[in-house]
């Protein structure tokens, strides 16, 4: 995720530069290797986001009991996979 930041920053700037840069950035995003990378990024990011929300809830003492904490951990794993699957399907 960290290594995607400079690449995304560069793509974002390119897309705002002019019409040509905009098309170019779309072409990059739609190329097979970048599309594959984007699926990996969506997976890691959705996992990170869900796990982060879980941690914020644990910070305010929601779901601290062992069974609840275990259940929410699985929910994070499952939710990230589902979100990634949804994204992958939307690409087809």
């Amino acid at each position, binding site marked *: 995720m*960290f290594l995607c*930041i*400079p690449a995304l920053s560069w793509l*974002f*700037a390119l897309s*705002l530069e*002019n019409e040509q840069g*905009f098309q170019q950035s779309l072409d990059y995003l739609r190329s097979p290797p970048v599309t594959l990378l984007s699926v990996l990024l969506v997976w890691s990011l959705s996992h990170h*986001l869900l796990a*982060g929300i879980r941690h914020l809830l644990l910070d305010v003492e929601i779901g601290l009991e062992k069974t609840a904490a275990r259940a929410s951990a699985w929910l994070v794993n499952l939710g990230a996979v589902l979100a990634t699957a949804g994204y992958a399907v939307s690409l087809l």
Partner: protein
Amino acid sequence: MSRAAQGLRAWLLQRFTAIYLAVYLLAVLAYGATGDELSFAQWRAWMGQPWMGVTTVLFSLALLLHVWVGIRDVLIDYIHAIWLRLLLMAATALVLAASLLWTVRALTLAALG
């Protein structure tokens, strides 16, 4: 500030930036999902609006801080050779700062028309 308070500051910073990053990301995704595909002119006009510019610069800044705290913690925990740890920290800071400035530059140019 004591070392313990510095740790608390990083901990708090990580949580506040996390909330902002999550809210911005979900809001933009939800907004983007409702609209049609944008043309270049629409995309630039959207990002050129003051409120998009300000919230996006804040997003980039929050991202820089969030990633810095996270990567720094990983480097402190796992890289024990001080010279290598400092080198990787410096490289991280450089990449993050350059990315932030490049994004701010793009948004500024878009805002100026």
